[in-house]
């Protein structure tokens, strides 16, 4: 028996557990690329239009920060650049969560202990998870390449694009392999991996921001920080441009190195424990904890703090960029048109700000989803049982979590507005915009809360599907917001997303009608949820 005995059996078990989840991830990510590949040729019909778009990508700091370096004036290059943001964020998330799910989460729930007592080697669990992760990313890479080839784009570029994304995912499998050893909880392991992702994103964003356009004017050369980030490496393969296959060695080497580290850590720790020490807590509870609302706040505050840091940094960055946008974007009529399409008419700065603020609205809905799903997690783990065995009504418990999520959403939107406004004021010296920006950000709250209302209803009405439904709804709104207009979707479909009805302030005036309607939807959904929850059984797992 070796340290790897049982790996294949465990991998089969992992595959079976993920038989629904993983295909959905793969299909969703492929769909995003497919939608772009299908719509972009419609959007840029002539070579001149493509060249204009590529030159914007090469010089516009917003595009550089989010989409990475411009790769040239070809359909393939533009398609990939426009899809880049979602790909380089979603693929590492999918992979890290996959690895943690089959390693640390198994330990946390005690499943690993049971498996460890059977004929299973010390490294089998981790190896099985890594096998799954690598296989998943290879399949994804092939799906992405096939999608691009199917859109009549050059095969070599399509393969390089698929490989660059697959290698990025595999690198994050290595990162998650280590974070799963370091943290004692699955939540913690996912949290550290997400922080690494955010750090890697910021690193390459800075690199691309301080880079410069190439002599051609339709390509961008990234600065050195991009080369320090696994996300940057995915860009540096430069598919449809240079197709630099050798860059793939970097993520591969990182993966092998981190897996080696993870194996060493596995050999040096006990099953169920992390590397971070567990600090003792207080012997008595602070008063603030002693209510359903206090408990919900205690359980949710960590997530909110993480989001606050991210939103704050993003806000300042957005504010700073806005001033640049004013100068760079002013040059191109076409960009103005694009920005106006998302952000509404009005001055360029206001349109741009409106686009950013709406992006914040939908992004912060991600927090609301996460916070509300905590209520489901509490029920699934059985924690809620001991709370409701106390003198606590169903509605008081549920509304405790809802209150935290609602206040957290409001606080994050306020923070987004404030930091964006301050960032802009810092660079432009114009403090007068802070108020309108904050107002615009807060005006997104009804739309965000309408989605939150849907999540509450899902948690109460279909608890076992709540997580899948909630994230799917968010993804639906996100994709609709990003490419709904490009795809020319029917109005009825667009109207399904609450964010379609969110005001494009500060570019447009805020009208009370849609806000009141969205708020009413949020309230109605919550009220129905509370009524339903008082009627149903508690359901574990």
């Amino acid at each position, binding site marked *: 028996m070796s340290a790897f005995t049982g790996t294949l059996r465990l991998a089969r078990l992992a595959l079976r557990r993920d038989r629904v989840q993983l295909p959905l991830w793969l299909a969703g990510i492929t769909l995003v690329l497919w939608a772009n590949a299908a719509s972009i040729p419609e959007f840029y019909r002539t070579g001149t239009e493509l060249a204009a778009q590529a030159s914007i990508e090469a010089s516009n700091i917003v595009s550089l920060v989010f989409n990475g370096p411009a790769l040239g004036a070809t359909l393939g290059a533009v398609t990939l650049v426009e899809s880049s943001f979602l790909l380089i964020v979603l693929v590492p998330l999918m992979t890290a969560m996959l690895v943690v799910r089959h390693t640390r989460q198994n330990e946390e729930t005690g499943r690993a202990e049971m498996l460890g007592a059977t004929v299973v080697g010390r490294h089998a669990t981790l190896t099985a998870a890594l096998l799954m992760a690598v296989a998943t990313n290879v399949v994804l890479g092939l799906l992405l390449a096939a999608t691009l080839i199917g859109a009549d784009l050059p095969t070599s570029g399509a393969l390089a694009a698929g490989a660059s994304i697959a290698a990025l995912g595999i690198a994050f499998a290595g990162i998650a392999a280590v974070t799963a050893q370091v943290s004692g909880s699955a939540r913690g392991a996912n949290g550290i991996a997400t922080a690494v992702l955010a750090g890697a994103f910021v690193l390459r964003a800075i690199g691309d921001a301080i880079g410069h356009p190439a002599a051609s004017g339709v390509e961008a050369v990234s600065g050195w920080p991009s080369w320090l980030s696994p996300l940057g490496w995915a860009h540096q393969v430069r598919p449809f441009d240079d197709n630099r296959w050798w860059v793939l060695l970097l993520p591969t080497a990182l993966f092998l190195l981190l897996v080696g580290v993870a194996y060493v850590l596995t050999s040096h720790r006990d099953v169920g424990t992390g590397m971070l020490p567990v600090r003792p*807590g207080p*012997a*008595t*509870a602070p008063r603030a*904890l002693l209510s359903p609302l206090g*408990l919900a706040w205690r359980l949710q505050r960590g997530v909110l703090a993480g989001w606050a840091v991210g939103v704050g940094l993003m806000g300042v960055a957005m504010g700073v960029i806005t001033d640049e946008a004013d100068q760079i974007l002013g040059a191109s009529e076409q960009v103005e048109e694009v920005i106006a399409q998302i952000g509404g008419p009005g001055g360029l700065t206001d349109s741009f700000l409106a686009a950013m603020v709406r992006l914040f609205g939908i992004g912060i809905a991600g927090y609301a989803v996460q916070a509300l799903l905590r209520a489901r997690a509490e029920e699934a783990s059985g924690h809620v049982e001991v709370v*409701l065995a106390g*003198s606590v009504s169903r509605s008081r418990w549920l509304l405790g979590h809802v209150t935290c999520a609602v206040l957290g959403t409001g606080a994050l939107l306020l923070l987004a507005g404030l930091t964006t406004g301050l960032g802009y004021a810092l660079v432009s010296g114009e403090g007068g915009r802070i108020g309108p920006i904050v107002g615009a950000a807060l005006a997104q709250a009804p739309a965000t809360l309408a989605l939150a209302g849907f999540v509450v209803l899902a948690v109460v009405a279909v608890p076992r599907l709540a997580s899948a439904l909630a994230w799917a709804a968010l993804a639906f709104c996100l994709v609709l917001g990003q490419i709904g207009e490009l795809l020319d979707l029917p109005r009825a479909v667009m109207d399904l997303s609450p964010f379609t009805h969110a005001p494009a302030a500060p570019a447009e005036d805020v009208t009370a009608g849609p806000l009141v309607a969205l708020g009413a939807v949020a309230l109605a959904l919550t009220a129905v949820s509370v009524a339903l929850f008082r009627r149903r059984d508690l359901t574990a797992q």
Partner: protein
Amino acid sequence: MTTVISVSNLVKTFGPTRALDELDLSVRAGEVHGFLGPNGAGKSTTIRVLLGLLRADSGAATLLGGDPWRDAVALHRRLAYVPGEVNLWPNLSGGEVIDLLGTLRGGLDPSRRRKLLERFELDPTKKVRTYSKGNRQKVALVAAFSSDVELFLLDEPTSGLDPLMEAVFQECVREVKEAGRTVLLSSHILAEVEALCDRVSIIREGHNVESGTLAELRHLTRTTIAVETDRPLTGLAEMAGVHDLIVEGTRAKFDVDTSGLGRALEHLTPFGIRTLTSTPPTLEELFLRHYGDELVGEPAATPAGAR
């Protein structure tokens, strides 16, 4: 004597599974009531219905004079619950959880809390993540016994405790009983049941098969007799109430229903008894008979599996 828990014809189904099948249960004020049954018999489901966590499909349940579903919030001020599977928040300390649970049910007595922590030898500063199963149970037990409540619903509360802590637990139950509180104790530890319970209810497949004091239950089962006589034994096999008979000339061994014991002895005497040992049924035998698949025709123990 008033009834604290009264359940009749309670039915609860989960899809095709009938978890509770016309269950009856009655717990009187001030008693420690043992709640027994094989795994999956419906004990935890019953307790969850009594806590208003699950809603019964039909039947009636009264708890402390109220409706367990409708009046849950008010009733829960007057009871404490210890679940069998103690799932607590891994990132809270044991002390925080005790205070939280106590406060949610309407407050706890700080001095009793302190004493119980000592008696159960529990370190309240440790995070729940680092507790073993037994220590998590201690957290729930300390929180429960620190509360001034009328009723304790304990669902296999000691399955993870060591024998020393088991003894502490038994002391705690006796103390609350002396204080006039009522306890519903679901347990598989028969010694614990024998030591603590005034009455027991045995359920199988969601149906009540037996209720009564231990003495009453014993009465319903058989005594094992081993006998040696002067003359070879005959006629025992034909007697009603005699089971598992082995006769070897002048020696015999058999089980006899309590109701048939007198007649059996009368039958034996004419053969000239040389030695006779009678073994009363152990609690284990009692339960094995009720838990097992074959329920031999006792008057009260009609086949509970019948649907």
